């Protein structure tokens, strides 16, 4: 899968789970401030990403993840 395709798949998950418009899901977007996501939204997103990409994300890995770009890096590094 190309990087573009991977990001698109990631983005689709975020749009679906967070119910945000596609143009807001950009690498620098902050989950809390820009996407209005609460902690439960983020848990949901992680679960959706785990399922979509067939990876597992440990709770400790989520520490400090605040932007779309950071989350994408975390997931793509596992592929």
């Amino acid at each position, binding site marked *: 899968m190309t990087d573009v395709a991977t990001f698109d798949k990631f983005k689709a998950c975020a749009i679906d789970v967070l119910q945000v418009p596609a143009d807001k899901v950009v690498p620098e977007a902050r989950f809390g401030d820009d996407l209005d996501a*609460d902690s*439960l939204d983020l*848990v*949901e997103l992680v*679960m959706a990403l785990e399922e979509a990409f067939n990876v597992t994300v440990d709770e400790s890995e989520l520490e400090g993840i605040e932007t779309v770009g950071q989350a994408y890096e975390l997931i793509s590094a596992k592929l």
Partner: protein
Amino acid sequence: MSGDGDATTTGRVVLVTGGSRGIGLGCARRFQSLGDTVAVTYRTAPPPELAGPRPEDLDLLAVPCDVREPAQVESAFAAVEQALGPIEVLVANAGVTKDMLLLRMGEEAWNEVLDTDLSGVYRVVRRALGPMVRAHRGRIVLVSSVVAFLGSPGQVNYGAAKAGLVGLARSLAREVGSRNITVNVVAPGVVDTDMIASLGEQRVEQLLAMVPLGRKASSADVAGAVAFLASDDAAYVTGAVLPVDGGLAMGL
């Protein structure tokens, strides 16, 4: 949800753990009478009515599940979801007792009861929650006990587990309120079940003497409270503990 103006919610998928007898079976029958599709889990034996030749006539799906085993919890939920669809109402009712005075209560008796009555609820609630969060809809009712508040000699393990459910429910209610999921507790008192019978006649008489309503509860009495907490009428009730004890522990 039906739109016929009836205040009672119907047509949901309901799962009751420990639903082969006692309070659990009473709850299952109540939800069925409301028009819900109901599944129960059982550990020791399926509901007696289902032993007959045509269980499908009873419209009650019974799946085996020892809530101490995470793998069994997963397979039970998967079986119910596959057969009936997403679970909208969870009644965490499965529980056991192993009564003895604390001085005699070894690790095994403590752990067995905590593992079923408290950790088992953690397991089924956690498994049920994901789909509810995604659906932005759900009802969770935990079956605690008057023993959580009143105490009962010989039931240090059971009392601890049942009190633990209250803390579990309240924290979880705060976690998932934004998703339109309510988490409530019923605290039954002396209910006419096998579990109460195991206390012995003398202890039951003793307890009944303290019950203002002067009688045991039936499983249906408890089921009515559970059905209320799972209904649309209780949409604004979460983190609550509803005693169904005939007044036995009022004010505690």
